[in-house]
């Protein structure tokens, strides 16, 4: 039986990002990379190597200054800010090092934000969906808690639930375990692997933790803004 390799979600061609100046500061340069669904990709490298910059380019938060970024075969480099926001809303989910929940909203409301903004579900359906996601994160009883009443690990899991709210094809993590103890850290990594292997999403994580990188399907090493090595498991 021949299993067709699933087509990559994202493909970069000579992707680059530099800051204007004299001389310009190069953050990322000449990156050719394919992000595949069903795979957990880790981007590693020393601090300042451009791994976070690359992640923000992949996540359409930042704009490249060179090269191309193809999403499902479409060049998304020239898209407007609003069109890029729409893609982030519909198809991407972000998890950051710091929990980045809105402090005025409780856990449930935070998870509901992207669902309500997308507007495909009624308020009640959005609530049900958010409850379901929090349940999957083991936070069913914390739904009404405000972020400052949650532990670090709980907050990060709320953030993951929020990232998954609109059922994204691509999940991006910027040091998602950077602020967690080893137990919570392992739990988050486990979740990320499940998102890729069981749910078929493309998961990309920037990390400096080599243990996490060991658990990834694809490990991309960076140095001085370039990819130095891509290792598949």
């Amino acid at each position, binding site marked *: 039986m021949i299993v067709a390799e699933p087509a990559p979600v994202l493909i970069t061609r000579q992707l680059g990002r530099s800051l204007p100046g004299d001389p310009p500061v190069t953050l990322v340069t000449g990156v050719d990379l394919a992000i595949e669904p069903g795979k957990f990709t880790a981007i590693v490298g020393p601090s300042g190597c451009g791994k976070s910059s690359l992640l*923000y380019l992949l996540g359409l*938060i930042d704009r490249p200054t060179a090269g191309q970024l193809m999403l499902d075969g479409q060049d998304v480099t020239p898209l407007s800010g*609003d069109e890029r*926001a*729409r*893609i982030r*809303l519909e198809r991407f989910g*972000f998890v950051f090092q710091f929990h980045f929940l809105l402090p*005025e909203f409780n856990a449930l409301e935070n998870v509901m934000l992207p669902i309500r*903004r997308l507007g495909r579900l009624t308020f009640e359906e959005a609530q049900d969906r958010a409850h379901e996601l929090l349940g999957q994160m083991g936070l069913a009883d914390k739904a009404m808690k405000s972020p400052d009443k949650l532990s670090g690990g709980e907050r990060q899991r709320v953030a993951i639930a929020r990232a998954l709210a609109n059922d994204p094809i691509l999940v991006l993590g910027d040091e998602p375990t950077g602020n967690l103890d080893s137990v919570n850290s392992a739990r988050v990594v486990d979740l990320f692997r499940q998102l890729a292997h069981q749910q078929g999403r493309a998961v990309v994580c920037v990390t400096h933790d080599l243990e996490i990188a060991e658990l990834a399907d694809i490990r991309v090493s960076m140095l001085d803004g370039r990819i130095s090595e891509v290792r598949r498991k």
Partner: protein
Amino acid sequence: MAAPALGRALGRLGLLVHIAAKHLLMRRRQTLVAVSGVAVGVGFFLAVSALMVGSQADFVKTLIDTAPHIIISDERRSPPPQPGVAAYGSGAVQLHGYKVRSEVRGIKDWQAILREVNEIPGAIGSPSLSGAVTLRVGGREEGLAVVGIDPSIEAKVSTIADKLRTGRLIDLERVQGGVIIGEDQAQRLALGMGDIVAATSARGGTRNLKIVGLFKRGQMQLGSGTGYMLLREAQSLLGRPFIINRIGVKLTDPYAAQDVAAQLERRHAYKAESWQERSADFLGLLLTRNVIMYSVVSAILLVASFGIYTAVSNSVADKRRDIAILRSIGFSQGDLQLVFVLEGVVLAVIGVVLGWGLGYVLMEILGSLKFPISGDVQRIPLDRSSRQYLVAAGASLSSGIVAAWLPARKTALVDPVDILRGAV
């Protein structure tokens, strides 16, 4: 297709209002300051404009209604040339025994003019004759400008009936030689109701008149030396039978007076003066007053919107992190600007509602004040129409939106990458 799109747009707006409201709730003190600024602004706007508009309306009403809207008099804007001038123009001639033609005063053919006036829809004309007589009581003499009227018609044209302290206009018809004079004059001549006074006109006629009514003192339009009589009796006293020298016209729409007056004057050559022409100086004064009022009131509302500007500006500065998070989730720049504009709108709306309450209370207080003026208890005229409330709301909402929009534009300057990476 349209319904779900509208639903989504409303859902988005609801979500953004929710976020804006949460921001405001977290910053209670600032919210309170901004809201009370708007409320005080709206409240005083209402009180001041109710006062100004109300007193102006009252003033204009007095101006319009005490005298007829148009007065046709037996004068001409420029008198017709003397026959000598008409015949010889600017030629140099010497004439002997030339007699200057003296005009017979009075409106010629006034019945025809009156008929024409009454045919104009909504117009009523009242003919009258005025002239000077001298009142003589026990050695004291005093001039009286006597006006002969038809009481039943004049009552429809002017408000003199309201100015009576005692007596009724219609009594002129019932009492032979009845006259209504001013309180002041009656006091000077030591006359009271029912007293008899001798009146002599310039042409020598003398009659005894009986006081059947007294005007209140201090009426602008009625000089203290004006008296009213029956038209027929005035004509005989003044020795000018069948003559009238004034037609007062009242219109249902006072603001048409200028046009109607111009039309009448074109047709009949007699001077037809509208109330606007008569009161040009007062109307000019009102314009100045309105300019002053609106500058003061706009300044109040402008200051109120500073509070909104500060509140939203601080909110944008404080919520840079939230802005970055929401952008990463997939909210557009427009969404975030709208969140902060909506903060201004929410502040303005709450302020307007509270301001309405404040304005209502202020108006109640102003309306309850009483002023005794020449024996009458008078209240401050207020314009309490809902139009004032709408104008106040419209002005504060629009200035609030502008005041919020200015700082809201700064959300575009927030670079989510910097904040998400820098992580507070």
